[in-house]
């Protein structure tokens, strides 16, 4: 008799399995997001020409010892324009220093972008050939990293940022000691 329930049990198991696979889609997450192997590891060091003043360099040393946001952006990137307003607000709020990594771009275009739309960054590092982007596992701008005071990568967001994502994913790391993570 119990044999007749086998198909039903198999169906139920399959249902649970497939439903859990769909969880991210049902919650409206972008399923092409990939977990970054960088999280929890030391931020890959770099030193690149500064966008504001290409004769100077800027790099991981500049934000050592304090939490910082590193935002990967480019002038050709639509999402970067979408999140630009948020970055301006974040930077003005003084919550955390915001640095830029200008990825796969040209200096004049990037400088023009900043001049026209405003500069949310303390400074941007100019990664014209994408070499540093590879070390950071960047595969599509915009990408936003949160780096801890000890230099480990705490969190990464792929796609345009906004305040709600900031509150959910990033702010808990910066909460006063004890609270959050």
């Amino acid at each position: 008799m119990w044999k007749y329930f086998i198909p039903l049990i198999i169906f139920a198991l399959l249902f649970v399995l497939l439903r859990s696979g769909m969880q991210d889609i049902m919650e409206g997450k972008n399923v092409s997001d990939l977990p970054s192997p960088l999280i929890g590891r030391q931020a890959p060091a770099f030193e690149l020409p500064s966008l504001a003043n290409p004769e100077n360099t800027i790099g991981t040393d500049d934000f050592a010892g304090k939490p910082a946001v590193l935002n990967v952006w480019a002038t050709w990137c639509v999402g970067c324009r979408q999140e630009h307003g948020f970055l301006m607000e974040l930077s003005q709020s003084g919550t955390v220093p915001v640095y830029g990594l200008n990825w796969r771009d040209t200096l004049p275009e990037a400088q023009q972008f900043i001049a026209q739309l405003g500069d949310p960054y303390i400074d941007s590092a100019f990664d014209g050939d994408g070499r540093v982007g590879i070390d950071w596992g960047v595969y599509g701008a915009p990408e936003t990293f949160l780096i801890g005071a000890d230099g480990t990568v705490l969190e990464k967001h792929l796609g345009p940022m906004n305040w709600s994502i900031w509150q959910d994913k990033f702010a808990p790391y910066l909460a006063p000691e004890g609270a959050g993570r």
Partner: protein
Amino acid sequence: MKLLLSLLATLFLASTAFAIDADEPLEDPGLQARYEEIIEEIRCLKCQNATIKDSPAFLATDLRREIKRMLVEGYTDEQIFDFMVERYGDFALYSPRASGKTLLLWVVPVALLLLGALALANIVRRRMAMPIDDEPDSGS
């Protein structure tokens, strides 16, 4: 023989003409051969269902350039794959490694196949044990 060679040459030229990778090949043919194998094994993370050999995205261009650099500098294939996994995760490889998180990917298909074989064996054995005189009464 000459005809065959020229046909082969045409084929070869045709394939490079359509290749997305328009860069100069490496000088060392041995390295170039390894290069071509490696770029078929690495996923373009931007387009996710293409290898970096087939993808025109500039991330793929950058990664191909990096692979060439590493080959010239004497990296082994394994070191190059490690380089990619370290930065982009297991998903960067088209044949994910059998380790930890990806173990399920390798084990489940084999397990399912074994399960199916067992079920089949079971059914066949039971049918074999049935009496043979139950032929349908056709052809009378």
